[in-house]
């Protein structure tokens, strides 16, 4: 794992090949989540409307729809036998923010709503600052879930913490409880379209956002059901995010696929503020042997933002 670059090209090829086979969809058991007529499933004649990630409406037969985002009770349970995890490689991050762009376009969010946040952390005055992209940690002992008065935010068996926008009363208690500032509130109208007629709201898509309710990174369970990676993972140009199923002991950033246990053990992964007992589902690989100088991350920022980052990280120059 340490010589990422040398093995990179090979992995890239693999990624393409793997993608190709995945789409044929006749493959192994693990790929059964892939939708499409080839994937089997009986025709029921009943059609359901699906919203594809780019916002277009497609119609599928219900029998093929084991990849549809779940609604109602099912959405609260989680995808069986999965346990989604993420590993973020801080050594590769240069604050390119492509993940945020991907996230926003996938969830149709306006630019001002940010579910991934970027920090320039510096652990002590003698150490160097590093970029720290932060999605929701999908904590396994989630403080946000504990305090919700109506169960509008809930923890699922697949490790994902979701928000039911139809149920949330907007008390913001979960925001107070989340120690990682992962949640954002729809103070005004988020300007998302209403659901198309006949389509049931699914918390798995986190769409549409509604005024007066909370939103946050949802680990894209609707994508997982289709066997696809979340948009932040695929839009990162540097392969920072590794995503996968802990029950399969495998994570991938789209081009490299590695064993989760080996990755976190060999690279001394840690979870942010483990001492809080929140047991995050997101692991960080320490920013050692970095690919980029932290200053590269300032390139596309506005001056006032650079100043703010510098202030936070105690950088005087």
């Amino acid at each position, binding site marked *: 794992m340490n010589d990422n670059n040398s093995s990179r090209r090979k992995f890239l090829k693999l990624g393409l090949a793997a993608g190709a086979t995945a789409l044929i969809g006749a493959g192994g058991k693990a790929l059964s989540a892939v939708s499409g007529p080839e994937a089997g499933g009986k025709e029921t004649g009943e059609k359901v409307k699906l919203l594809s990630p780019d916002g277009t409406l497609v119609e599928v037969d219900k029998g093929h729809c084991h990849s549809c985002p779940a609604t109602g009770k099912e959405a609260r349970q989680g995808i069986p036998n999965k346990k989604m995890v993420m590993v973020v490689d801080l050594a590769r991050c240069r604050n390119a923010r492509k993940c945020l762009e991907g996230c926003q376009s996938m969830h149709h969010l306006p630019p001002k709503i940010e579910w991934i946040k970027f920090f320039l952390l510096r652990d002590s005055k003698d150490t160097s600052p590093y970029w720290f992209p932060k999605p929701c940690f999908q904590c396994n002992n989630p403080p946000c879930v504990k305090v919700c008065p109506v169960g509008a935010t809930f923890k699922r068996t697949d490790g994902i913490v979701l928000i039911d926008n139809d149920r949330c009363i907007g008390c913001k208690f979960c925001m107070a409880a989340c120690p990682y500032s992962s*949640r954002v509130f729809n103070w005004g109208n988020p300007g998302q379209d209403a659901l198309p007629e006949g389509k049931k709201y699914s918390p798995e898509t986190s769409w549409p956002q509604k005024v007066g309710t909370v939103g946050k990174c949802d680990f894209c369970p609707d994508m997982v059901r289709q066997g696809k990676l979340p948009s932040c993972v695929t839009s990162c140009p540097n392969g920072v995010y590794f995503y996968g199923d802990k029950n399969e002991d495998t994570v991938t950033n789209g081009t490299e696929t590695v064993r989760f246990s080996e990755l976190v053990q060999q690279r001394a992964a840690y979870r942010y*503020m483990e001492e809080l007992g929140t047991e995050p589902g997101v692991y960080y690989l320490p920013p050692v042997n970095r690919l980029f100088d932290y200053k590269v991350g300032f390139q596309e920022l506005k001056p006032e933002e650079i100043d703010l980052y510098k202030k936070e990280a105690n950088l005087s120059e």
Partner: protein
Amino acid sequence: MEYNNKTIKNYEDFKPQLESIGRYGYFFITAMVMIIAWGTYALYTQLSKGQVVTGMRDYVIWGIYDANFIFFIGISYAGALISGILHLMRVEWRHPILRMAETITVVSTMIGPSYIFLSMGRLERVWHILVYGRIQSPIVWDVFAISTYLIGSFIFLYLACVRDLAFMRDHPVGVAKWRNSIYKFMSAGYRDTPKQRELLNQLIDLISIVIIPLAILVHSVLAWIFGMTLRPGWHSTIFAPYFVLAAIYSGTGVLIIVMFVFRKIYHLEAHITKNHFTYLGILLMILGALYGYFTFSEYLTNWYGSVKWDMEVLYRLFDTSTYWWWFFFSAFIGVLLPIILIAMPRFRSIKTIVFAAMIAVTALWVKRYLIIIPTLETPLLPLHDVRPEFASYSPSWVEWSLTAMGIAIWLLLFFLFSKFLPIIPVVRVNSADERDYFKLRKLAKERILRRMISKTRRDKGPVAGMLILLFLTSALVCRAEDPVHSRLKLEFLNKSGTHLLTAKLTSKKDDQTIPLEGMQVSFFIQGVKDKTLLGKGSTDEAGKATFTLPDKLDVPRNKDGKYLYSASFEGNKEYQSSESSAEIRDVFMKLTFSQKDSAKLINLFAVEINEKGDSVPIEGSTAIFYVPRTFSYLKIGEQPVKGGHADIDFPVTLPGDSVGNLPIIAKFEDNDNYGNSEVSATMAWGKPLPPMVIIKRGLGDTNAPLWMVYTLIVLLSLVWFHFTYAIFTIFRIRHLGKAALQEENASSATK
């Protein structure tokens, strides 16, 4: 019914206030109504536009609404604790101030929670708490606690008013008839028969015993809303007692101010004497000292421990550019000044005591502000936002208006109440008549338990309202530009014997490769002379078109033993045409598993088909082994094939399904001769996946831990048992009253 002279004389003092509102009264009411109207406009603005109109943003998610909430619940302590305790201790001087204290409780408990509603994003969904409520959430504890408390303080106030209501029934006011009928209805037929008197005294004792722990609980629960989070400055074990103490402190302060105001406007100097102020002042001083002690202890501990986040909050409080002056006022002035003013007999006068109380009350509001805002401005991760309104909080006009509205409603309700009933009980009870409350238990045992009716009905939760669904109209943006370059890439795929051709069609846009969807791609094979069309396919969202080759091809292999496949895209208005081809030699692959001693192996056998159609073992090409996973393929090894064989270790440590089934794929990848040829097989040598454990009960789960459920049930039923008993007894008093009335009538008739 007879009233003694003292009572009648008492009443004389109040008669004018009850019968007319007065010029200033009308002026006051108009002013309050105007403020309330303005507040209603602010409320409308917030409800229609959402909470953008407040100063709250993603970091400071709670603002002065919540400070007001704590503040009002805090001052409600005046009635619950002070009057409860004074009553139980049979303090002689308590009578004139009890009703004010209890009214403060009821009015504040009505206003306070409405601020919680204001700070909610979806007011129209409050009923979700009833339907989906989770006992694990401190907010739900709060809902239970505050609603119970509100009802309890209503009962408490009412019981203390019954005698006066009866008096008013017997001495009708001259202005409005409807008022007299209210008095009549509410007096519950109280005629002060010995039996009724006994029951009423008993009840008042009982409810004052119940209301004290209830009040403590309410404020503790309130503190736990903050204490249960992992925030610096909130996550503190002393928060509950600290809140309780601060609440009594401010409650006493408000009581002193209210006493002063009514004394002034209603000229009650004869009833509320300087002694009342002195006694309550001394209580205020003691509470102030205790409050100061808690404050000191809290901040000293934080400072001494100097955990990074605690320190950041402290810096904020001690920094003159942020909150120092506020903090100085609330923690120093607000504690020391009242103590000094009251402790020194030289300074102690009604005016200074009232001044001290005002300082204490204001300081306590500021304190609530300082509990909420600086902590929220200090998240554990840096507060990173260039938008100034996100980085620091300042209340908007909407929030101030609604705060003013709350105060106005509070004042107005209080004023109207003082016009309805004498603000000081006119009918005094002889202390000797009051039963000793320690006898209550015995009484309860003997009489009440038997008669308690337990009948509960469970309501089905309201059916969830249907959302009106709207059409999503998506506009297609058509582009008419010069055709751009397109790229086609053909791949051959042998998937466990099924032969496929896939062609991926892409184009470049802004230096990014984008897949082209919905395009026709034709697949060909090279015959002896020309190429023949095999079939067509259209590309999917990933830009891929797939064609499954028939089992047997009618075309002979070329001299290398290969087939030449090609694919072409004809192009259209937007994209230029493109082509791609691949030369492939057929292979046959087989995957088996073998176990030698403890080693578990995967064996690949692979042969190629030469130009004559014979099988020849593959030599030299590298086979790669994968395990398919949800999103991609995990590589488990690679091995050059020698003499048609390649073996690798089975990945026994890799988790499979519940019995350890692990699909394995062996593959020649992007091979010059074989394209992508693969074979797969499944073997149960992987690590079996333990069955999913679903935890049903826990803080973060759907259902609450059992001990929590039991605690809640026990607490609630204890309190509600007493409330029910109280209501039941009121009806009994009423019943007794009717009997007494009949008797009276009968005796007067015989006379």
